[in-house]
């Protein structure tokens, strides 16, 4: 297997109270696969992604990428956050170059930058400052930056969550195109059922308290998927039902918390 997550547990300690956030996570991801982690807020999907990125360490269990144990962040795993997280003091080009600088000459790096700017269709913005770009454009630069260091896997943490609906749709289309062009393995976190169905080969549905895998759902619809409305609706219903219980639990718990404060 390409990326394996084995018996991962994660606990956080807050004010002396230890909470289990992730429980018994086992997951295998094939090379080139587009996998979504889907679940209500608080299910630990972002936590799991951060563990894969190496930004958090699991309390138990281990993760392997290409048979290498994951212990810390590395260039083999590119990450795109909900906020573009571009460095404002660097131009678009310099941002994409950030990870390349130490490995190659500036000239070579520039060629790569151009290639990835083309991929996200922002070739003419190389010299711009991030603050001159719209939110959607910034997020595309952020995707280009993660891809430019040629990672083995692309991790995306609700990358379109902060964007408006139209931009979001456009970027989903663009991501699908980028994925089919680059054949990258993508691990994608979202709370949008439609987004997950539209993009993924496989959806991992997570439940809350503690976060655990409820079900793995392979999405078997031809791409582009817009035309296959019936199938989409079928999957939507299935996942909605699956999550309904979970969301009810969350609401109940939050109400309970609100009362007890």
């Amino acid at each position, binding site marked *: 297997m390409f990326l394996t997550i084995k018996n991962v547990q994660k606990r956080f300690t807050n004010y002396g109270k230890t909470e289990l956030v992730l429980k018994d996570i086992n997951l295998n991801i094939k090379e080139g696969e587009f996998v979504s982690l889907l679940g209500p807020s608080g299910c630990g999907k972002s936590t799991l992604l951060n563990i894969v990125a190496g930004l958090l360490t699991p309390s138990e269990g281990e993760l392997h990428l290409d048979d290498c144990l994951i212990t810390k962040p590395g260039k083999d795993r590119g990450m795109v956050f909900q906020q573009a997280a571009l460095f404002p*003091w660097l131009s678009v080009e310099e941002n994409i170059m*950030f990870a390349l600088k130490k490995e190659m000459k500036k000239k070579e790096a520039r060629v790569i930058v151009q290639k990835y700017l083309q991929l996200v269709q922002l070739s003419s913005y190389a010299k711009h400052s991030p603050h001159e770009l719209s939110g959607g454009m910034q997020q595309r630069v952020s995707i280009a930056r993660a891809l430019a260091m040629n990672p083995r896997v692309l991790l995306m943490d609700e990358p379109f969550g902060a964007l408006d609906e139209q931009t979001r749709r456009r970027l989903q289309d663009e991501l699908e195109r980028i994925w089919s062009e680059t054949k990258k393995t993508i691990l994608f976190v979202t709370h949008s059922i439609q987004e997950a169905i539209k993009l993924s080969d496989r959806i991992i549905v997570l439940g809350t308290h503690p976060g655990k895998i409820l079900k793995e759902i392979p999405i078997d619809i031809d791409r582009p998927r817009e035309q296959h409305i019936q199938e989409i609706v079928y999957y939507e219903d299935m996942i909605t039902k699956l999550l309904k219980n979970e969301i009810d639990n969350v609401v109940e718990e939050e109400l309970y918390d609100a009362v007890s404060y």
Partner: protein
Amino acid sequence: MQLAIKRILFFVALFGLWELAIRIFHIPAVILPSPVDVLLSLRESLADGSLIEDLGASFTRLIIGLSIALIIGVLLGVFLANVKTADETLGSLILALQSIPSIVWLPLAIMWFGLNEKSVIFIIVLGAAIVMTINMRTGIKNVQPLYIKAAQTMGSTGIDLFIRVMLPAAVPYAVTGTRLAWAFAWRALMAGELLSTGPGLGYTLKYASDFGRMDMVIAIMFVIGVIGVTVDILIFQRIEKRVLVKWGLEQKEAA
């Protein structure tokens, strides 16, 4: 445009009232000179070159003092932000020193360095370095965790992470620190010169006061004020604004 007209009218009225009050109440020039006297005195010191000379001397001190202060401030700020024990001990001392106006160090400074340039520069450094240190420390401590995470996923750690991410991310604070350091330095300079030796704006002010030349005193006060405001608005506020917009901390004003 409206704003400019309002301001011009205000200042004309102010000077008019001032002139009028002096004539009506027959106020002697040693108590309060008329605005006309002040203008004449300003022209006189411009004409004989003494004002330019004073400005040159004062600015030389200021630039030396401010440069030293900024270097110390950056280094010390970075040090405090990175070494927790130093922050908890030395940091508290620096916060305490901040509440002491730097000019009260002058008696000691004169004992250490003598009644000369060095004492004044010492006062400037002390005043400006502290505020720069505090801002720099805050800047490094307040770097958005997201920037750090993003850099880590791109393989940046340790010194590389610090130089390529933490330092540039702290630039807005450094700019604010520099602006405040300038303001502190300017005040410290004037106070230091008043109490120490010339040539310099502060020294000339005291000299004029010894001879009862209040028109000259006010003329120099006027110069001090104009320079203070001009440098702040024309240089520092502009840079600060541009940096804040670029760093995404402030929206650009609608044109």
